[in-house]
């Protein structure tokens, strides 16, 4: 009866063969909460796991997050065009925060990303944030992991500050936090530690000139005072003529090349497995593992190549001891 009868393993194979047209079916599957679909999702993730691939999925997973109204979507539109100009395929997973009081949501983000509908190299999927405002949709982790083995770049776009970049960091190889000039709260969040230090900080509306440059200087000073020289700070302008887009791509690429990808992806799989476990078994399940931190530590002792389903199974076994 459930519509989630797609074959997960077959979808995984299509992705491994570089078939970008499989993306929509992959999303339809991982979003499906039916029992049959969940089994197929596990099969999909196993088919694109490091064990199956012989390496980590080669795509670059980039989190783009920031407060509402700072120009994330316009920036993304420029970024997608610039990646395509470099002949890189891009999948965008736009997590929309819109109201769910009714359970429903309005997903309008894809409208802001200019694209050629005949270009299979750009895939955009909007997903409602679920019950947690600004958080990741439950399916987003699985989707990002799977698509990274076919697309050159996978972008996860979320809205918010203080929480969302933490969650995105669990999945993405790099997190770019987008702010606009004059947003002092981000500075405060950084200094007070409410917000984790991102991999890249992007200041939009560079066309504002001096105001944007001052914001840039303030952020750099704040990062220095926190002892972080690693974070690149880039000023961009998305209106015509665009500016700073190439620099941003360069900063992301530099970050990727310096990253221990195996370690970051293994951590992502552990957190994914733990999130799935917690969603299924709740606080009681976590207590059975000695709490969340203890569970994370125990997972670190497992083989880093294990896929998400295997890790979750490990946790379930351990909880039964």
């Amino acid at each position, binding site marked *: *009866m*459930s*519509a*989630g009868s797609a074959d997960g393993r077959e979808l995984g194979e299509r992705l491994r063969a570089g078939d970008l*047209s499989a*993306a*929509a079916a992959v*999303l*339809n599957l991982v*979003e*499906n*909460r*039916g029992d049959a*679909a969940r089994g197929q999702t596990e099969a999909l993730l196993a088919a694109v796991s490091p064990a199956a691939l012989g390496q980590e999925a080669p795509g670059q997973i980039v989190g783009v997050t920031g407060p509402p109204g700072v120009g994330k979507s316009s920036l993304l539109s420029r970024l997608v065009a610039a990646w395509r100009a470099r002949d890189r395929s891009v999948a965008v997973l736009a997590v929309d925060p*819109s*109201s769910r*009081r*009714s*359970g*429903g*949501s*309005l*997903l*309008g983000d*894809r*409208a*802001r990303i*200019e694209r050629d*509908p*005949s270009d299979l190299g750009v*895939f*955009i*999927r*909007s997903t*409602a944030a679920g019950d947690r405002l600004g958080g990741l949709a439950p399916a987003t982790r699985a989707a990002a992991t799977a698509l990274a083995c076919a697309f050159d770049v996978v972008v996860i776009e979320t809205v918010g500050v203080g929480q969302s970049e933490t969650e995105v960091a669990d999945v993405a190889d790099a997190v770019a936090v987008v702010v606009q000039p004059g947003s002092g709260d981000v500075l405060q969040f950084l200094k007070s530690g409410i917000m984790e230090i991102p991999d890249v900080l992007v200041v939009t509306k560079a066309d504002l000139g001096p105001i944007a440059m001052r914001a840039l200087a303030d952020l750099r000073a704040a990062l220095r005072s926190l002892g972080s020289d690693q974070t690149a700070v880039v000023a961009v302008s998305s*209106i*015509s003529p665009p500016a700073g887009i190439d620099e941003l791509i360069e900063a992301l690429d530099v970050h990727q090349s310096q990253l221990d990808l195996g370690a970051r992806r293994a951590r992502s799989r552990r957190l994914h497995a733990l999130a799935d476990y917690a969603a299924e078994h709740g606080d009681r399940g976590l207590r059975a593992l000695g709490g969340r931190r203890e569970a994370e530590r125990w997972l670190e002792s497992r083989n880093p190549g294990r896929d998400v389903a295997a890790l979750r199974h490990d946790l379930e076994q351990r909880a039964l001891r």
Partner: protein
Amino acid sequence: MLQMPETVHLPERDRPWMMRTYAGHSDAERSNELYRRNLEKGQTGLSVAFDLPTQTGYDPDHELARGEVGKVGVSIAHEGDMRALVKGIPLDQMNTSMTINATAAWLLALYIVAAENQDPPIRESDLQGTTQNDILKEYLSRGTYAFPPAPSMRLIADTIAYTVKNVPKWNPINICSYHLQEAGATPVQEIAYAMSNAVAVLDAVRERVPDDLMGSVFGRISFFVNAGVRFVEEHAKLRAMSQLWDELGQRRYGVRDDKHRRFRYGVQVNSLGLTEAQPENNVYRIALEALAVTLGRDVRARAVQLPAWNEALGLPRPWDQQWSLRLQQVLAYETDLLEYPDIFEGSHVMEGLVAELVAGAREEMARVAELGGAVQAVDYMKSALVDSHRERWRRIESGELTVVGMNRFQSTEPSPLTADADGGILVVDPAVEAQQQAALERWRAQRDQAAVDSALAELGRVARDDAENIMPATIAAARAGATTGEWSQTLRDVFGEYRAPTGVGEAAAVSGADLAELRDEVERLSDALGRRLKFLVGKPGLDGHSNGAEQIAVRARDAGMDVVYEGIRLTPSQIASSAAQEGVHVIGLSILSGSHAELIPSVLEALADAGVENVPVVVGGIIPAADAAALRQAGVAAVYTPKDWDLNAMMRDIIGLVRERHDVDTAAPA
């Protein structure tokens, strides 16, 4: 000695307002013929309706023009078309209103050059008329924008600065409150947003003209308003606008001359309230609305155009338009309306009503100002309009607001007016599109291409230099024979493209007993499907009338669906690609411009090409019954027209369609 009471009559009967009919269709020749016939019938001014490609800056052979050439107005692709449009109508004696916005500078240039080429030649300084030229309301409601806000405001300021000096009898802009009401604005919102819009325009012009010209600039700004069927309040609205406008002139712009501060406006009365059900009743609505703008002498309209009784059915025929013109003539020439001074002078009720509206409008204007002015506040105003429209719709559905023949007094005899074979509407010859494309080919072949190239290069240079006025280079391009699409593309290359906010994302969620039931149905179906019911609402083609699509999107969201809505002006392949990538379960398409016969089959084809299967497509719009049958034949699952005003019933239909396609049983537990 007996004292005779002082007479309350005017010493001399007032001259009537200017009477126009918003008209134009197919090509320039056919529209010219229509205009001449209308003038013979006693119409005293022209009101040109352009087709959507002309309004949005595309040539008839552009992909987006498909199905739209000559449909809602006349196609004007170059100066030759404009010359043919006004052939035999001496332009120094005509007052022409052009409903043109994003491409207003271009159409004004074509008009100026066409006048030069009349025999005898007419100088630009002798031309009279208006260009609508109001871009903010295009973002908010009407949707025929082409460029982003900043360069669009510059184009407006340039046309004002140019005409004040060179075409002094021209009204270069009509600040439109009309379309705000069509988008659901309350009277207070209509006043406040129109005034805020005027402030944004005047502030932009102030930077481009010498101070001593600001008085004349202020005096050339006119308004284009709406009047709904609540005609007493609507009249008060105009008095409130007049008062605020006078204040604005004195306080913000230091305009000394009283004449310059006079509130001048043209009007097209309400289309939003016209019904498809028992359409003959619309005649009464239109008559009452005409009273709203003519009753009080102090704020009487300068120019009036009335819609036709059958607008909710399709495009009106010349006879339908004649019927509306006759209404104006009866009002002006048969009644005693024009014999008295202002009949509301001294009325406490009217004064109180005006004071209420002024106070409300001031508050709302302050809010817009706080957000940085009308240009910055487009998002805010748009979502406020979507909310107001939704409230209006809720009141109709609940029966709080009576619409005779629609939600009350529905029983009716069959109407002889719609019994004709043509269904009582005008059908544009589908061959027009190909004819216009061929004519454009010929035009391009016979012109001096080098002259066009250099004129467009110069236009591009001027566009990049913010300090220069766009008009001289635009007029030169018109003389050289450039096309509407070429002029616009040159500017798009410099200014970039733009998508206006949809306003739906911010719309507040509502609830109600009816909705709770719907949500339960959506929940059950979503559980059966495995993921939440996902609905794509799409607007194919150039039609910018998004108010209906927005209400559908918001209601579907409130019913618990995940709704993908991308705004207006999508190609069939864009819609198909979105449907495929988003994995939607059902698609709703909205078209009000009459191009459904061409566009909907294209969307169906594109969906098949994109591999979208088992996804029902429903269509909404102004769709004649014969067309609806053809669409269903082509594979459309359901067709909705303005008579389907119960949105919850529509939602239930949509849920049912998806349930059927997926063969799932989600009957409520007993």
